[in-house]
């Protein structure tokens, strides 16, 4: 793999032309998909109509675009990028292709608190409107996600953070959360259960600007931070002993990256629920497209955004008027593609 050096002052990165090409292609694809998302819905618009409506504040289409379709599409893209980036970081640190934010307790923690809230609140919860309805579930999710991560992190910390111990503690804690979640589903009324199932599959239905802003802010802060951290990721790949030998201070670097992964996943989950499979599959898809030996971070994020946006387009339209949770579609789209890539890379 050819790699060109890129220097800014004292910092330097290796830039892979293939990764750059793929990232740019992905971004173009993302814009096209978003444009398609703006056009399609109960009110069909052509592209010129979309453009005029965007700037014509008085038209009916303006409301549809600016208050319904655009924030929803942006939420999807941002959440997909955040989950994928989180997954890429965790897979690099754990050196394990199966690792995802579930291992850190984030998405599973969020699922438990939200299901508990929906089941305990009962059907009455469905009639609650206004502030509680818009903020209640995301707040519960964020709280549960961070709490779950704190539990995993706290239990795994012992005179430093060992990647292997983190993964093992993570599977133990995730198992508890998952089982408790399913137990809560058996306790609840079947209607509440169905509503909870939609949430734990990840859904973009009715997402607005209040979901876009936190995810965008999190990405704006955490992406640069993560890219700075890639240098220590490059070193981490050689194994703990070599890393210490290379003089990289392992624990602060690792702890900071874990924290970034937790925050990305927590914010994303609070906005759209734990959209299945994006965090796990996007880094693996990006890795195979770029043909590198560990998940490329930026490229993974772009793959996550494209996957989620395409999935939402399908979730909105295929079974219309019934809308599927987007997380179901990400798996239906992403899984065969990942299988195809695995299949091709073996030949």
């Amino acid at each position, binding site marked *: 793999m050819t790699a060109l050096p890129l220097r800014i002052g004292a910092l330097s990165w290796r830039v892979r032309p293939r990764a750059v090409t793929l990232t740019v292609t992905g971004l173009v694809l993302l814009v096209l998909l978003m444009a398609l998302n703006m056009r399609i819905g109960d009110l069909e618009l052509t592209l010129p109509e979309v453009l005029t409506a965007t700037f014509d504040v008085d038209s009916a289409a303006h409301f549809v675009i600016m208050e319904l379709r655009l924030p929803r599409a942006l939420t999807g893209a941002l959440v997909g990028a955040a989950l994928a980036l989180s997954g890429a970081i965790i897979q690099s640190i754990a050196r394990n292709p199966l690792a995802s934010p579930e291992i850190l307790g984030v998405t599973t923690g969020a699922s438990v608190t939200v299901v508990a809230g929906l089941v305990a609140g009962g059907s009455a919860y469905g009639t609650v409107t206004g502030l509680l309805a818009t903020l209640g579930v995301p707040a519960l999710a964020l709280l549960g996600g961070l709490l779950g991560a704190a539990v995993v992190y706290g239990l795994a910390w012992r005179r430093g953070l060992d990647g292997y111990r983190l993964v093992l503690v993570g599977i133990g804690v995730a198992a508890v959360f998952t089982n408790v979640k*399913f137990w809560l589903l058996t306790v609840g009324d079947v209607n509440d259960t169905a509503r909870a199932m939609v949430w734990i599959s990840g859904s973009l239905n009715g997402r607005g600007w209040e979901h876009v802003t936190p995810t965008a802010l999190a990405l704006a802060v955490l992406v640069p931070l993560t890219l700075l951290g890639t240098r220590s990721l490059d070193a981490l790949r050689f194994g703990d002993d070599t890393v210490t030998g290379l003089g990289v201070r392992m624990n602060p670097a690792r702890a900071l990256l874990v924290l970034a992964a937790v925050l990305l996943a927590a914010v994303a989950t609070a906005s759209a629920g734990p959209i299945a499979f994006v965090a796990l599959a996007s880094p693996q898809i990006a890795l195979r497209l770029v043909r590198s030996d560990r998940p490329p971070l930026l490229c993974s994020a772009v793959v996550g955004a494209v996957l989620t946006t395409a999935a939402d387009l399908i979730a909105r339209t295929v079974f219309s008027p019934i809308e599927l949770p987007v997380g179901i579609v990400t798996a239906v789209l992403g899984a065969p593609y990942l299988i195809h890539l695995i299949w091709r890379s073996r030949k």
Partner: protein
Amino acid sequence: MSATAVAPRLHGLRRRRLTVLLALLACVAVAVVLSVTIGSKPVPLADAWHAITAPTGTENDIVIRSLRLPRTALGILAGIALGVAGALMQGHTRNPLADPGLLGVTQGAAFAMVSSIILLGASSLLVHIWYGLAGALVASVAVFALGMVGGRGGPTPVTLALAGTAVSALLYALTSTIVLLDEQAMDVFRFWQAGSIASRGGEVVWQVLPFVLAGLVLALVNAPGLNALSLGEDVARGLGQNVGRTRAVGVAAVTLLSGAAVAACGSLAFIGLIVPHLVRPLSGTDHRWLLPFSGLVGAALLLIADVVGRVVAPPGELEVGVVLALLGAPFFVALVRRRKPVRL
């Protein structure tokens, strides 16, 4: 170290392992006694013995013979099956996150059951189990075939694990879609997903028994080959191992064991995932010991968790899957924290 010094050490290791084996057998025996005697209606040990050896149709005899014994037997079978399957799966993928569900077994069973409900209106437990078994078998064969494409001596651990995750995710998505559209399917699915060995009846035990036995035989046959594979595929090939065949036998064993357990008891992901990690400090990485130890610990853990589930929430019961997680995970985490875990 000279050969004369190695021999006594190996001898000591062997003795220690045999001691552990006996201790684990004793644990299972205690768990069986608890499982048969404790419940919403406690039965004295003497009465239980009486019910088994010379039943006279008293109330206790009926409780023991029609409820407790089948439940205990299913617990033993499922515990052994999932423990052994977990150890095999982690050995073959060299991945500490691997569990029997990784091959698509769990989601294959769930998808087959849920579709049989909406397509065929299947409603009896036995019919569900057969669909679950069939779904588990088909899904894991598909995963293995996918992981194997490209030849070169069979699937590598990473492609096998990723193909399994991808297929599982796909099947779970399809299952979720059905469940969201059909309330009756949702009702069956959520209880199946929580996992239980209660009120399955003796018939179920007999139906899954042959699959579990076949799986155990294959697992034992697979152990030496798996030991060689854990040195690396090239070394294993150099030692004269047929890598592809060893993997195939391992996958067949995992499929039979976990397919049977999952179809009969629902999703009990916890045991297969965690038991091998609990056992490795006792057995080391030699699969000839790791596999039987994992089976015994799995059985004891499942039975004890089931007993706890019966007594903690009277008059109802807590599903064994939930108890397992609540009991087992803190124990597991404590163990992982206390000593350096044995790496794969």
